[in-house]
């Protein structure tokens, strides 16, 4: 009988569709695209040094770093905000499968967004270089490209984890947004605060992913921060959703 279960592919298609089938999700996607375009073009126009493809594409990281995690939060909390969990889990009572299918599309969106930013950056780089009569830098090290995509995916995963743990979009968004300023404050609290931030602030522990400056300590820091902000809340949230009473 297992052959007749809802295929995971179908769950994935339905959950991906839910990212784009409401007015609010369309607005969110629209903002993401427009901001990426505006920032990359704006940076190209105002840049004083000769244009670099990767620097221009990377400009989009600022809106992506905020909007992608929010997209993740809204995706996993949506079934509770609108009480559609009743319908969703009545069609597929194996809740863990639904959750897995829910987490993958925002991660995919993170990867697609990076590629999209790169795609826009190509003509902007070319036009800017031509307009100024300077030589553009096209080369991108595969390592920093992969690192960039990984950081975006990780940030999105952080949003997913926080959303799944709290099942409350406003609370999850506030906690996510409060992170960077709070870590800035913790760093001011002497060496203990600095050590804490070095190990737990995802914004710094992910730096080696971008610059390739790896050693065992850097790896341990990244692993610790990812465990605390992604793996553990994701696991606890999933455990809670699979066990709790719905309705």
């Amino acid at each position, binding site marked *: 009988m297992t052959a007749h279960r*809802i295929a995971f592919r179908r769950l994935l298609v339905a959950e991906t569709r839910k990212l784009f089938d409401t007015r609010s999700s369309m607005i969110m996607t629209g903002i993401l695209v427009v901001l990426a375009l505006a920032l990359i073009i704006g940076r190209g126009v105002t840049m004083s040094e000769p244009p670099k493809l990767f620097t221009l594409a990377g400009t989009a990281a600022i809106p992506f770093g905020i909007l992608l995690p929010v997209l993740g939060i809204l995706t996993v909390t949506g079934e509770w905000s609108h*009480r*559609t*969990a009743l*319908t969703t889990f*009545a069609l*597929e*009572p194996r809740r863990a499968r639904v959750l897995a299918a829910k987490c993958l599309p925002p991660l995919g969106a993170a990867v697609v967004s990076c590629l999209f930013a790169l795609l826009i950056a190509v003509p902007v780089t070319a036009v800017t270089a031509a307009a100024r009569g300077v030589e553009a830098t096209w080369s991108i090290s595969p390592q920093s490209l992969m690192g960039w995509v990984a950081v975006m995916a990780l940030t999105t995963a952080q949003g997913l984890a926080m959303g799944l743990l709290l099942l409350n979009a406003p609370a999850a968004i506030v906690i996510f947004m409060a992170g960077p300023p709070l870590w800035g404050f913790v760093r001011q609290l002497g060496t203990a605060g600095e050590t804490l931030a070095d190990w737990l602030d995802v914004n710094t522990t992910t730096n080696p992913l971008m610059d390739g400056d790896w050693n065992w300590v850097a790896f341990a820091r990244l692993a610790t921060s990812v465990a605390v902000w992604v793996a553990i809340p994701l696991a606890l949230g999933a455990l809670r959703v699979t*066990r709790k009473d719905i*309705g």
Partner: protein
Amino acid sequence: MIEFHRVSKAYKGVKALDEVSFSVRPGGITGFLGPNGAGKSTALRVLTGLCRPTSGSATVLGRAYAELDRPGYDVGTLLDAGAHHPGRTGREVLTLGALLLGLPKKRVDEVLELVGLTVREGRRTVGGYSLGMRQRLGIGHALLGRPQALILDEPANGLDPQGIQWMRGLLRDLADAGCAVLLSSHLLHEVEQVADHIVMIGCGRVLAQGSVAELARGRSLEQTFLDLTSDADRSRA
């Protein structure tokens, strides 16, 4: 086809359901009748695997709901007509269900027509629907996979008189075709007109069950219902 076997459910020590047992046979409509807060919705959520019973078990087609392979094909459920994303169109709600069940797009059109929603209404977002339209959409969603059992929580709420008459006809046709229908309501007259069999519940306990004639015992069904539910309230107090 649907069996409750001594189902109890306690929330923080308060018993929402107390040894509830009854069954629903195919080819008939069972009305699950009780005042607000009697435990009807809790019972239906236990039945559909959304809530865990403290003790006892509920089965559909001989299995726990959560163990059915593709419950959408076996059992149609409408647990809360309000539980839709307000920004999604009615058609999109059905399309998502059809996608999960692997049904063709054509089925979405069929279901919209079956529940009396026009093409234009289908294109509107659910946020702008009246409660009656949401009930129609929810019933349509439940019928997508042509199930053998239907579980409907307060489906008549918000329907206008024409809508109620339409629903009666629809449920009667489904039951005549062999479907087991379980519908809950706090509206006695509604249940009386459509159900073959009635299960009365109050304060989490089954107070009486039987055919409409059996329960009325020569008086009005309403009198039986009021007597039983006030007895249940008194014994609890």
